[in-house]
């Protein structure tokens, strides 16, 4: 009885991916391309946070490394956009592994603080080597052009590319968390002592999880650079790393399908829902919704509301509805455990 929900979910996702551009403006299609990109990043972070139980506040910078890899290869070395994606993943994965080695000596909140250094250092490094990175002014990719030879709209083209890669990466993530390897990852999350007693190298698994998650974020970053057509330090602010972690928690840490909802949240809260909610508040209370910083208030309120209604994320909520289980303890415990332990 376990299979159908996952298969149904994947089938529904594929149908949604096909149908969405048919029903959307080019701009919405462009936004959904970003949903696919964020999905890849969240799948990666979820392997680290959801399955291995390690919190990272640095994965926005891993996206940045992927984005810069793609941009530098395309702009300075004349590579084809698409061919840079595996390189972006591998370079970022290598950086992730290297960071994973020392970082995994920390646990819980200490690790979160250590990873917080990644986006800070990343911005510093970008500005330190302006000849290589373009410095504050960044680097510009040429605008998107379809490589299909048809008169395909550029927004549709990046949508197709993003989602083909996203669905492939979803499959990769699915295989990663299956079987022995997946069990080993989860054992690190659930009990390090039990994992060690069973012959699992906890430090090794954590480091590997760091590398794999960074690989995902690197690929996502490469696509991000192609979609934005520009990279500079402001494009990868510390907020992005926090937003990615929020996306994992909201989607449901430890659930692959839940990351789709997390990705929708990451894309739409800043650009679409936040301003819309603000306008709504403005109509009701006649407050100045254009005051600086008011969007952040809405963002915080939404986050608190969602966590209150669905502490195990959207995936937990869906599972709760699907299985018809009412008891809070019964549905919240197995899924929310990793997030709550660390929070």
């Amino acid at each position, binding site marked *: 009885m376990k299979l159908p929900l996952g298969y149904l979910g994947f089938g529904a996702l594929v149908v949604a991916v096909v149908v969405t551009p048919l029903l959307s*403006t080019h701009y919405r299609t462009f936004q959904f391309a970003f949903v696919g990109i964020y999905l890849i990043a969240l799948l990666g972070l979820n392997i680290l946070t959801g399955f291995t139980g390690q919190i990272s506040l640095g994965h926005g910078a891993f996206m940045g490394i992927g984005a810069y890899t793609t941009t530098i290869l395309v702009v300075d070395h004349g590579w084809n956009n698409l061919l840079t994606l595996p390189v972006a993943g591998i370079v970022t994965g290598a950086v992730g592994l290297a960071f994973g080695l020392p970082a995994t000596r920390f646990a819980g909140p200490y690790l979160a603080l250590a990873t917080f250094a990644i986006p800070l250092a990343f911005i*510093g490094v970008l500005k330190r080597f302006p000849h290589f990175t373009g410095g504050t002014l960044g680097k*510009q990719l040429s605008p998107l052009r379809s490589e299909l030879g048809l008169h395909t709209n550029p927004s549709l083209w990046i949508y197709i590319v993003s989602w*083909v890669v996203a669905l492939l990466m979803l499959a990769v993530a699915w295989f990663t968390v299956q079987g022995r390897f997946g069990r080993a990852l989860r054992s690190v999350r659930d009990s390090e002592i039990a994992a060690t007693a069973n012959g699992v190298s906890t430090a090794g698994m954590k480091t590997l999880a760091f590398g794999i998650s960074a690989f995902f974020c690197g690929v996502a970053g490469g696509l991000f650079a192609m979609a934005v057509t*520009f990279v500079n330090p402001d494009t990868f602010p510390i907020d992005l790393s926090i937003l990615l972690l929020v996306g994992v928690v909201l989607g449901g840490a430890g659930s692959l399908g839940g990351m789709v909802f997390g990705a929708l949240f990451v894309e739409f809260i800043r650009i679409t829902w936040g301003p819309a909610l603000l306008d709504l508040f403005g109509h009701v209370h006649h407050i100045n919704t254009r005051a600086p*910083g008011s*969007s952040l208030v809405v963002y915080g309120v939404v986050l608190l509301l969602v966590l209150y209604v669905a502490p195990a994320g959207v995936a937990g909520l869906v599972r709760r509805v699907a299985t018809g289980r009412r008891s809070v303890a019964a549905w919240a415990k197995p899924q929310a455990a990793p997030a709550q332990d660390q929070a």
Partner: protein
Amino acid sequence: MKRTFLLLAAAVLASAAVVVAAGAAPSAAPGVTAKTILLEGTFPLSGPASGYAPIPSGMQAYFSYVNKKGGVNGRKIVFKFEDDGYNPANTVQLTHKFVEQDHAFALVGGLGTEPQLPVRQYLNDNKVPQLFVSTGATTFDRDWSQYPWTIGWQPDYEAEGAIYGKYVAKNFPTAKLGVLYQNDDYGNDYLRGLNAGLTAQHQNMIVATAPYDLSSSPPAAQVAKLKASGADTFVIFATPTPTIQSYVIATKLGWKPAHVITNSVSATDSFLTIATKSGSDLTNGTLTVNYLLDPSNPIYNKTPGMKLYRQIMAKYDPKGNANDGLNLYGVAKAWNIVQLLQSLGKNPTRAGLMKAARNMNFTTKAKKANPFALPGVDIVTRAGDQFPISQVTLVQYQNNVFKPLGKLINGRGA
């Protein structure tokens, strides 16, 4: 395992095929209806540059005023602005929304060098006007032949830097300059201008330069370095927040430079007031330049432009701080946009708008000067000169008002 994979592969291929088949794009009239004309822009309402948030409010107030009087050639102006948080990734998405979903007639006043750079090529490819960007980065005016759909408005940073150079070389020939500048195109434009204005002959007046990064902590180490260099003239080429911090840090370090020169972007009454209230005693005497009427200085209260500005603010933006020059900047820019739209007649086109922007002649001589600019400031573009505003006057901040020092100077002239 195998079955799952095949299923996956089939699904991916099927989705790609259907998506490709759905390629055709609908076309829509760009932003002009029988009754309205749609203008949009991105501004930082949150994040490190949110100090600029009054600019779109001022623009909105002026458009409301024009709409109340019947609009432009019978159409009301609908102005929508969105918060990009000064993050170019957000600017790009919002700009796609303006063009592909809202079908804006033109993008107006988009704020910030880095946010506006990545959308420049996109807007030019789509032939959408990127009108009067709110940045003085020289490239937006200089590179007009490469980007015919893009134009700036305010005096560019390089020209402003040159004016400071000329001024100190002439008036304080023995001064020792310590220059704090933002480590990016913005700060470097200013620094390059300063060097050019000093000319090779006075280059040695600069005894120390200290770059800082916008994203790092307050520029304390940099200010300390400038103080230690023995500089007696503190030159600040920074954005508002680090500027305020620099004033406070210099005071706390006990540095008493004879002169402080601060770029016009940051040397507004509201920012200098914050610096004073935060404990700095160095704001008095600050030198900067201005090209617009200054709402914080009562000497302009009798001018028709200031009277109109205060009426507009009182009626259409009563919660805004009318003494903040950024509101006036927005109003003055909106005036210019309305003038262009009016000149297009009954059937405005995007190409017509750019043609009008490339041939502006809003001068005192033509009796069409911008009422919100300083008397004598002309807004002129013509073949070979696409820098709309080039004249400024040096002003000194004394007892909470800016006192003009002498006549208008053309930053791009000899």
